[in-house]
């Protein structure tokens, strides 16, 4: 059956809660309402109010309480209603959760999943459009994932729930109902830390993740048709830890790398990817590592502003052509 990205997340939650009675869900409006986006729809009816918990508006509490339950053996999946609000829980994530195992000398673990609906292109303006992943990708002790397909959304969430560490799970709001695919019956997972080649090619590599994967695939189709370029598209899927082998493999294969993300340019994950390539695959490069990312500004509301700020297929096509010319 064809399933949307949103339904895939919902399925993963249902299946994991059925599989393990220690899994529970907590957040703002997740129970009665089924979540602001309906991601947690049906969980309350299926699992009851002890395991599907509406909280006050209190992000630090939501994460902190999740940590308290997690260290005693529970498997909380907590929701930030919008990824933008994760800043209110920043200390609990980067200090309480991420250092927990370290400061307990390896004798504690913190298996919490923090779901964060993120991303722009939905007229969300400054505080409902952010892509805050790079605040977390430099924090040891965390894992960070950002699925771009329904299959990965389901498989990565299952892996995150089963992982023994805090995992920040960024789900892209624009993908919720805009993409769908047939998912296999039965249990499957997608390993954390493993990137996936979405399309093989020999001329140039695009490295991306999350919301921009589909724009990159569109751009690759355009340049294949109009320029005869065979573009390889690597979907990182996990942002911490980065799959360095996959990054270096595609860089060495094509010699030209474009990194694309919807997060802002400066301090984004693209800088780290470019540095990895420059350090370890320099001799394979036939051109500079280029980046396409959101402009270094806030996510303006009015459509002309947002279009100007965000990456899209046309901007990616231009960047591909510029890089291919080397």
């Amino acid at each position, binding site marked *: 059956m064809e399933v949307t990205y949103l339904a895939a997340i919902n399925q993963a939650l249902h299946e994991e809660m059925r599989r393990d009675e220690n899994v*529970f869900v907590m957040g703002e409006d997740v129970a009665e309402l089924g979540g602001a986006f309906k991601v947690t729809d049906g969980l309350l009816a299926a699992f009851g109010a*002890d*395991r599907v*918990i509406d*909280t*006050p508006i*209190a992000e*630090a*509490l939501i*994460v*902190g*309480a*999740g*940590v*308290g*339950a*997690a*260290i*005693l*053996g*529970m498997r*909380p999946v907590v929701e930030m209603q919008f990824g933008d609000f994760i800043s209110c829980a920043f*200390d*609990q994530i980067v*200090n*309480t959760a991420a*250092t*927990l*195992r*370290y*400061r*307990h*000398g*390896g*004798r*504690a*673990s*913190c*298996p919490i999943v923090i779901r964060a609906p993120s991303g722009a292109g939905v007229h969300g303006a400054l505080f409902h459009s952010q892509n805050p992943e790079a605040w977390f990708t430099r924090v*040891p*002790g965390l*894992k960070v994932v950002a699925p771009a397909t329904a299959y990965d959304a389901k498989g990565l969430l299952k*892996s995150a729930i*089963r*992982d*023994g*560490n805090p995992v920040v799970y960024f789900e892209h709001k624009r993908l919720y109902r805009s993409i769908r695919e047939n998912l296999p019956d039965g249990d499957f997972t997608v*390993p*954390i*830390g*493993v990137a996936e080649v979405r399309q093989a090619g020999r001329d140039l590599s695009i490295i991306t993740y999350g919301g921009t994967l589909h724009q990159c695939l569109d751009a690759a189709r355009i340049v294949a048709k109009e320029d005869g370029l065979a573009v390889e598209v690597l979907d990182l899927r996990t942002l*911490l*830890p*980065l*799959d*360095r*082998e996959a990054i270096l493999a595609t860089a060495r294969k094509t010699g030209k790398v474009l990194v694309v993300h919807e997060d802002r340019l400066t301090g984004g994950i693209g800088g780290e990817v470019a540095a990895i390539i420059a350090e370890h695959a320099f001799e394979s490069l036939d051109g500079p590592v280029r980046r396409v990312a959101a402009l270094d500004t806030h996510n303006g509301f009015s459509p002309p502003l947002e279009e100007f700020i965000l990456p899209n297929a046309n901007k990616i096509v231009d960047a591909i052509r510029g890089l291919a010319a080397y």
Partner: protein
Amino acid sequence: MAHAQTAAASSETGARVEYELQLYYWMKLIRAFEERVSRLHRQNKILGGVYSGAGQEAVVTGVCAPLRPGDFVAPLHRDLGVFLVRGVEPGRLMAQLMGKETGLSRGKDSFLHGGDLEHVIFGSTSMLGSSLPVAAGAALKFQIKKEAQVAVAFFGEGASSRGDVHEAMNFAGVRKLPVVFVCENNRYAYSTPLEKQMAIENVADRAAAYGFKGHVVSGNDLLAVVQLAERVIRRVREGGGPELIECKTYRYRGHSEHDAALYRDQEELLEWQSRDPIPQYELYLEKKGHDLKRIRAEIDERTRAILQQAVEFAEQSPAPAPEEALEDLYAPGPMNPASNGRS
């Protein structure tokens, strides 16, 4: 009732008498441990921040004594006594303070941030008050799993200004969680006095705003603390919802050992030292007919031996190897990010 036989022969059980003597022992051990730590810091044998809880021993002793195994405790940075009362090996605690491999955090963090989940003690971070949401989460687990356990979160009146504290208390009130919030009000947030921190008299008064009871007790009166804590913990364990205990107390030393606390009036310090929890409790034991002189001599001897052993153990323990800086970041699983590649 003022002679030796009375206590044991009274309607009180022998167990209660033993318990009351045990409380005394713990307070004395904590004080001796604190004083030794301050000395070791002066000798450069303990580096970094050292936050003495001297003067506040009755709070941790009185609150932790009625707890059961499996109850969750989140101490604050001054609560060395929590570890001792909950049964953590003194040598491991000393090794923790010295940054040794045998310490709670294996050298990863300083002083009291290394928790010990074997004893269900959570290692709090330096972001004071951030452990209250965690304690609420531990209590939530007990509630979900219908376990007759309680969570205890210690915090200072300084931390009470932080939003985490409000978020945790509000949620605990809404869900009637089995958590006891214990405020150690020692009147100073580092150098900032009470009147610059809050516009009301008692932190405990805030409990009403969250729909549960708040109690004020002298944190230097062990008997008062323990009697209140026993009642509160029993009610909370039985499902009565959270409660807040505010203990009015005072720290003798600065915020940390490098702080001479010149912002405080010397007279104020003397006043509080005259209300020291240990002699107060000794008076009680004497009134109950115990041979205090003998008991004190025995306990002093015992704590001296324990501390000597603890210091020797810690000093002889190895420091961690440099490369261990990269260990203990991730729980083992299908994929270890430290390996930076496919599993």
